[in-house]
């Protein structure tokens, strides 16, 4: 009856050195990849054929929701946000929202309430409707 409560399965207070090192290496790799990408799109101009060609546009001739994103990135890196907005206004919303979702899903065990709120089916359906509406709208 009065048995002692056993210690928790993971009674950790400090993350181990290996764990911290792995996180630092991962963060550095991610930063490096982002820097390389930025350097590429700073130098190369997608308006002149650099970068990736859109499969959807090649097949159908219509713009996809992401068409213009590379040109917009090039313009942004050259300090022309207005020009970037003209190439593709959609990525100004889509990329931050997508990044936020990726982070929230990664932390969903630590913040289950937040995760439940943002992945509510009404919210996600609205996201899809927005994407499809923009897709159709930009080709009209």
């Amino acid at each position, binding site marked *: 009856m009065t048995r002692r*409560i056993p210690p928790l399965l993971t009674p950790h207070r400090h993350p*181990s050195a290996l764990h911290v090192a792995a996180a630092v290496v991962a963060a550095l790799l991610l930063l490096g990849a982002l820097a390389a990408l930025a350097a590429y799109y700073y130098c190369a101009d997608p308006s002149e054929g650099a970068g990736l060609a859109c499969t*959807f546009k090649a097949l159908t001739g219509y713009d*996809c929701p992401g068409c213009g994103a590379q040109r917009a990135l090039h313009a942004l890196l050259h300090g022309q946000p207005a020009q970037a907005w003209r190439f593709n206004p959609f990525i100004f919303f889509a990329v931050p929202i997508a990044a936020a979702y990726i982070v929230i899903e990664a932390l969903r065990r630590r913040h289950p309430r937040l995760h439940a709120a943002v992945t509510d089916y009404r919210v996600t359906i609205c996201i899809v409707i927005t994407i499809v509406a923009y897709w159709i709208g930009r080709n009209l």
Partner: protein
Amino acid sequence: MKVWLYLNGQQQGPFNVEDIVDIPGLTEETLAWYEGLPKWYPAGTLPELKYLFDKETLGQPASGGQTTTSDDAEVGQVIENTENAVVTDLAEVTETTGETEAAQCAGTDGHAERHTAPEENVAEAGDTLAEEPSAETGDGVYYNPAAAAVAPRPRPACPPSYIGWSVFLIVCCCSPFSLAALIASVCVSSFYARGDMARARKASEWAAWLIMVTIALGIIPVALMSALMN
């Protein structure tokens, strides 16, 4: 029966078993302990607490009247289920904490226990059920189905929908696969909203695969082609 829970980074309790449905933040993965367990387990894997998270048995406690006459077949089923659940959930716990210490802990001492413990639990659950108002609990605290039916129930967490990746892939490399991934992502939250956990998990897997396929078939060949053309 008194239950201790590991919530918000600290051990809390004791709680009466019928009160813990009301505790905010309690999920299947919350670590729990009660008298007789060798160590802490995710609440969803414990036979005494499992009913809190079972959609099929909503309103009917797992330790209801009919299970007092436990057939051997039924008990065997329960043992099998809990055993699987414990193994996967422990794997998940160690994975999410990401602690090498935790991994070592599970690797060294947890291994033998992990397989024997659930059977003990089930046996013990059976024992306490057999001797009705239970001398062990002493204070006469027992599960009350009427109270629990009214109380709001914590639900198992939604499986990952990967919608962030799907949206990102729609924008950065549009293909039929990324559109399919986006639809699968939305299906996860829709099935979850309907309470269909099995389909939500399935959709989550689909979304993950479609995202990988999009990257493999969308970005890599296009990048290669672009590199060759220029």
